[in-house]
């Protein structure tokens, strides 16, 4: 995680102005590519498949806010993704809320959950933080298994897509697609703005050198907790949206393997890069789709990618390309 930071430290001032200009151009190009991809994709691929990618891309970007920009490895993010999926599904199906309101309620639930889990987990650091988030997320998993409204092993099925603002029929694939694309782009923009805000700068200062950030007088725990809640909330948006797209929420959504997958997407795309997690999500979701004929060997492939990424490819796809093009922030 610190490789990129160390690299950035070696630069002379002159080189860094050149680099920051190049970075700006690269960022504009990436934005154009991203929006173009979102607009064009449904004409070439199944809209549901692209929507799945968008949900996981938003999930991975939200996760990256923690690991990439704050330096906290959460191993329990499925709790927010899946928890929000169940809550959104329930309020839409049983309470009859509109899909947008349902997703927002799901995100709110994820925020509350994020506050509770985050407040406990930040009491320890590093590897303990990872173990604690994993264990706390397991509580959410058992609740999803045991509570009456979740449908236990079968999951919560038959969530209606309903009408957006009471008029737009979301059972139409393209209408649903535009809704999901809008949610993704808004979520992505929020993350982008956060990273570049003064708040985001403090988070990165914490990642790079926690004692120094502390000595500068920042209330580190408060910043970590705020980042955690924001990350959980946006993961909840992704999870709620996913529940509306697929019309169900299941135990898979809250399982630790989903927490592992979002880590892999972020790692593969590039931790601490802006566009990397989205690239990672596209890669992993596509891979799972293309390799589905392999059955449970997919898990072996995923595990092997994990091992290779950690050993050889710690900057990830976007991070590695950025380094080759000598661009610092993409």
């Amino acid at each position, binding site marked *: *995680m*610190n490789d990129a930071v160390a690299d950035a430290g070696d630069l002379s001032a002159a080189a860094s102005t050149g680099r920051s200009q190049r970075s700006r151009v690269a960022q504009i190009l990436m934005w154009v590519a991203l929006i173009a991809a979102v607009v064009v994709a449904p004409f070439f691929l199944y809209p549901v498949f692209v929507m799945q990618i968008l949900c996981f891309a938003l999930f991975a970007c939200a996760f990256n806010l923690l690991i990439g920009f704050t330096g906290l*490895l959460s191993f329990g993010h499925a709790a927010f993704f899946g928890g929000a999926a169940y809550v959104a599904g329930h309020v839409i199906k049983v309470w009859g809320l509109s899909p947008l309101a349902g997703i927002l309620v799901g995100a709110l639930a994820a925020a509350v959950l994020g506050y509770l889990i985050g407040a*406990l987990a930040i*009491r*320890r650091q*590093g*590897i*303990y933080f*990872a*173990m*604690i988030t*994993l*264990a*706390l997320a*397991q*509580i959410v998993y*058992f*609740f999803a298994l*045991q509570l009456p409204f979740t449908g236990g092993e079968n999951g919560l099925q038959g969530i209606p897509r309903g009408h957006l603002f009471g008029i737009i029929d979301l059972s139409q694939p393209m209408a649903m697609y535009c809704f999901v694309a809008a949610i993704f782009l808004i979520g992505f923009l929020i993350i982008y703005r956060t990273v570049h805000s003064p708040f985001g700068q403090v988070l990165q200062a914490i990642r790079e050198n926690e004692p120094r950030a502390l000595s500068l007088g920042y209330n580190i725990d408060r910043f970590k907790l705020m980042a955690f809640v924001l990350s959980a909330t946006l993961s909840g948006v992704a999870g709620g949206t996913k529940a509306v797209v697929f019309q169900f929420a299941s135990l898979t959504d809250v399982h*630790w393997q989903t927490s*592992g997958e979002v*880590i892999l997407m972020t*790692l593969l795309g590039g931790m601490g890069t802006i566009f990397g997690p989205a690239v990672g999500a596209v890669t992993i979701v596509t891979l799972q789709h293309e390799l589905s004929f392999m*059955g*449970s*060997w*997919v*898990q*072996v*492939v*995923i*595990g*092997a*990618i*994990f*091992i290779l*990424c*950690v*050993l050889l490819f*710690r900057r990830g796809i976007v991070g590695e390309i950025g380094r080759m093009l000598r661009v610092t922030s993409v």
Partner: protein
Amino acid sequence: MDVNIKLILAQAMLGLNNGVFYAMLSLGLAIIFGLLNVINFAHGALYMTGAFVALILYSFLGVWLGMEWLHIGFWPALIIAPLVVGSFGMLIERLLLRWLYRYDPIYSLLLTFGVALVLQGIFINYFNVSGTPYPGQPESLRGVVNLGFMVFPKFRLFAIVFSVIVCFAVWFVIERTRIGSVLRAGTEKPELVQAFGINVPLMVTLTFGFGTGLAGLAGVLAAPIYSVSPLMGADLIIVVFAVVVIGGMGSILGAVVSGLALGLIEGMTKVFYAPAASTVIFFLMVVVLLVRPAGLFGRQS
């Protein structure tokens, strides 16, 4: 009232039975963490592998070799499986983990997570996910013993006694012998120990092999009790992580005692409010984090 006490004692015994597995696994994790500063996510998968080695030795190896009469039983498995799993652990350390010591320990955690997925995926492909019974339980440990308050399966009693003996033997070796003092010194200041002429990289490999071997041993003991399933390690490792957070990584004895105690508590919870049994350890972790974040036996930093 009388019935209740019997029920509580019975659940306590079953809880203790789970507790010895928590203790053996958290002991291995703590030893590895001490010297390598690595949390081995593959520990659960290696425990599962240990159980499968025992199952394969008894039920499959003979068939594969075309010698249907060959069933390698429980006692040989108790020695072979830890050796197989420990050797595999040493390979992981030598070939993979070794390259990551200079980076953030998070990368080692992710690497071992990948190893766990690979192992689990491989076994899922060849074996039934819902479990295969292990038929190789030795004749001498079949049947039940009367403990006064309940009749208890002989094998489970053996597993409890044997594991407790193993845990305390490991504690004794680490705290009271020459090998243990080298290990403790290596945990504190590996560079200096190396400068005294001790081969620390070799010690690291052997320690990782020993810790994972303990997981393999626990797997063999678990095979006749639970059915042998590719997923048996995955859920267990998360509970063991909670045990480790509760106990703190600082002490060997702490890992063993908290493992046993939490197994007991989990068993008792079944008596009073069964649905909470699967989460009680996680909630206890929450309480410990609120009251004593470093863990019960951990050093406050």
